[in-house]
């Protein structure tokens, strides 16, 4: 992988074209590493990226998403795009944009073990920081749209969300690739901090077309906080989500749900780690894979219950449907339990749709295509229903079903 640094990031001032191995990023992930075992990175590695930003999108609706209201923060090709954004003043929210000059590129930040995190810090072009004051309940979702619209462009972005005590927020994140761009890459990092008794729901939607998207997400929860993340993966060459949810306070609720629907050799990958460090918490995971036409899905979920974390309830579920012989799923639910008084379960199923059910639907005059769509809908509905906005639900469904 080569990045042509046209943006002159602080770390890379001297060279305009860099072999990344010259940077201290650690080694590019290899298949023999457990975490990358199922994720072939050849197609990503061979691309020569640049990070020169330019704005190409004139209207958000050209990206096929429904009209978004309220606060909308749009990044395009790694930069804040003010004309696409709608920055309204919300009294209880503090919003900061850190870019170029005011990002301190601390070389200590490169001490992460993960290559793509290091890459993100080294080439970071836009960091959005959102803080919500204590005791505030904001009902309208805040929208964060991250677009790649330029061929071979790498976008390294970060979004920090700090929810203070007893506040509540709902965020919708859209990761989008314009349909006429290819081989772009959004390498994004979410950093979430939930103070005590706060609550955050993130609906995350990924529709990258012929581009790549990796998301590293770090969530820290203090006591009695509630975190829900619903990840809907509709398209992209490789989509990879690495969620690290650290539960540091008692009586927390953590919930990770997802639907991933790769087709045509797309590779959608969900890695999750929930760390239960303390007692009396609950966590839930529910991921559904619908895979067809040589698509590949990965679910690798890990729940770690540390030694003193008694009375933990952790439930992890991954169900997959393969629609043909060419499609693949790697499912690996993991529990590591070091406490002795816990209720934990995990399960994974992979199957096909029932032939009898298909005949039943067809005998009522429903075509094969529509029947499969109905059954898919039935299969993923449980997760889609987590969102309570019917227009959003309908849109997500449509894109997941590739309708």
């Amino acid at each position, binding site marked *: 992988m080569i990045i042509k640094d046209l943006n002159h990031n602080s770390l890379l001032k001297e060279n305009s074209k860099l072999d990344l191995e010259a940077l201290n990023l650690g080694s590019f992930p290899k298949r023999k590493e457990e975490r990358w075992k199922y994720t072939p990175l050849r197609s990503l590695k061979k691309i020569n990226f640049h990070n020169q930003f330019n704005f190409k999108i004139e209207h958000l609706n050209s990206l096929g998403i429904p009209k978004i209201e309220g606060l909308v923060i749009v990044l395009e090709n790694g930069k804040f795009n003010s004309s696409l954004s709608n920055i309204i003043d919300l009294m209880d929210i503090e919003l900061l944009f850190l870019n170029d000059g005011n990002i301190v590129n601390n070389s200590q930040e490169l001490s992460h073990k993960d290559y793509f995190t290091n890459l993100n810090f080294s080439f970071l072009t836009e960091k959005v920081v959102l803080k919500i004051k204590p005791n505030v309940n904001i009902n309208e979702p805040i929208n964060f749209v991250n677009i790649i619209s330029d061929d071979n462009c790498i976008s390294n972005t970060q979004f920090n969300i700090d929810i203070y005590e007893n506040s509540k927020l709902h965020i919708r994140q859209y990761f989008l690739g314009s349909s006429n761009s290819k081989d772009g890459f959004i390498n994004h990092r979410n950093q979430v901090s939930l103070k005590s008794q706060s609550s955050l729901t993130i609906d995350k939607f990924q529709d990258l077309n012929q581009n790549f998207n990796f998301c590293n997400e770090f969530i820290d929860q203090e006591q009695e906080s509630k975190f829900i993340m619903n990840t809907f993966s509709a398209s992209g060459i490789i989509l990879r989500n690495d969620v690290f949810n650290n539960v540091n306070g008692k009586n927390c609720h953590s919930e990770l749900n997802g639907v991933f629907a790769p087709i045509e050799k797309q590779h959608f990958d969900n890695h999750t780690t929930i760390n239960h460090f303390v007692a009396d918490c609950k966590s839930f995971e529910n991921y559904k894979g619908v895979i067809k036409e040589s698509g590949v899905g990965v679910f690798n979920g890990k729940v770690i219950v540390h030694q003193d974390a008694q009375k933990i309830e952790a439930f992890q579920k991954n169900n997959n449907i393969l629609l043909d012989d060419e499609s693949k799923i790697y499912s690996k639910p993991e529990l590591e339990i070091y406490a002795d008084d816990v209720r934990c379960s995990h399960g994974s199923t992979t199957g096909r749709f*029932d*032939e*009898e*059910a298909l*005949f*039943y*639907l*067809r*005998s*009522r*005059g*429903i*075509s*094969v295509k*529509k029947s499969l769509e*109905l*059954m898919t*809908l*039935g*299969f*993923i*509905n*449980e997760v889609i229903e987590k969102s309570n906005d019917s227009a959003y639900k309908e849109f997500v469904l449509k894109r997941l079903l590739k309708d």
Partner: protein
Amino acid sequence: MSELLIEIKDLECNIDNQKILQGLNLKINKGEVHAIMGPNGSGKSTLSSVLAGNDNYEVTNGSINFLGEEISEMSPEERSWKGMFLAFQYPVEIPGVSNINFLRTALNERNKYFGIDSIPAKDFLKMVAEKSELVGLNNKLKNRSVNEGFSGGEKKRNEIFQMAMLDPKLSILDETDSGLDIDALKIVANGVNKLKSSENATVVITHYQRLLDYIVPDFVHVLHEGKIIKSGDKSLALELEKKGYDWLKTDENI
């Protein structure tokens, strides 16, 4: 002279290379009710599956002419659009798909085939209210997933409800009486009778005469080893109830 609805000629079919139907002939006119009876394994359910277009069954010979068209190669959905309906012996559960959404999709798919606009939500709901009353289908069941968690009786009522919604030309009721208590049986039979008209026909497949007290057939056929070996009027069903099937099998052998 009544109008011919379906004509089955010399129908032979296999499943897993095993011959099930072996030269079956049957003619049904509009306005008629036919009962097909026969011992276990005689091919009754196979006949219903083949007519509905289940591709697990391979038609090896013969023809099925439905409203002037050969349908033995036609897809199940196309048969449905043209007016074929099978009430399943074991209705299938479809998790996560609501009964309502399922039926609306079915009606809209048919409308699409005939180039008609989708049915407006208001009209659809009115129709649902009307037709579900016919079989006393509990309101809650309409919004639940298709057949999921339904009792045996509810599943069968749901089949007749779907039949009412789709208003088919030919309805095949495959052992609709199995698993029904006498009250449910009456309700289901009553629903079927109400749907009867001079434009459609019903085939009742059953083991027992009991259902035929409520859905009175014009013709009764006995199926044995994949063929109809005897046809008669409703008195044949009563005779079968008394004497069983063995006397017919012997007759045939002579």
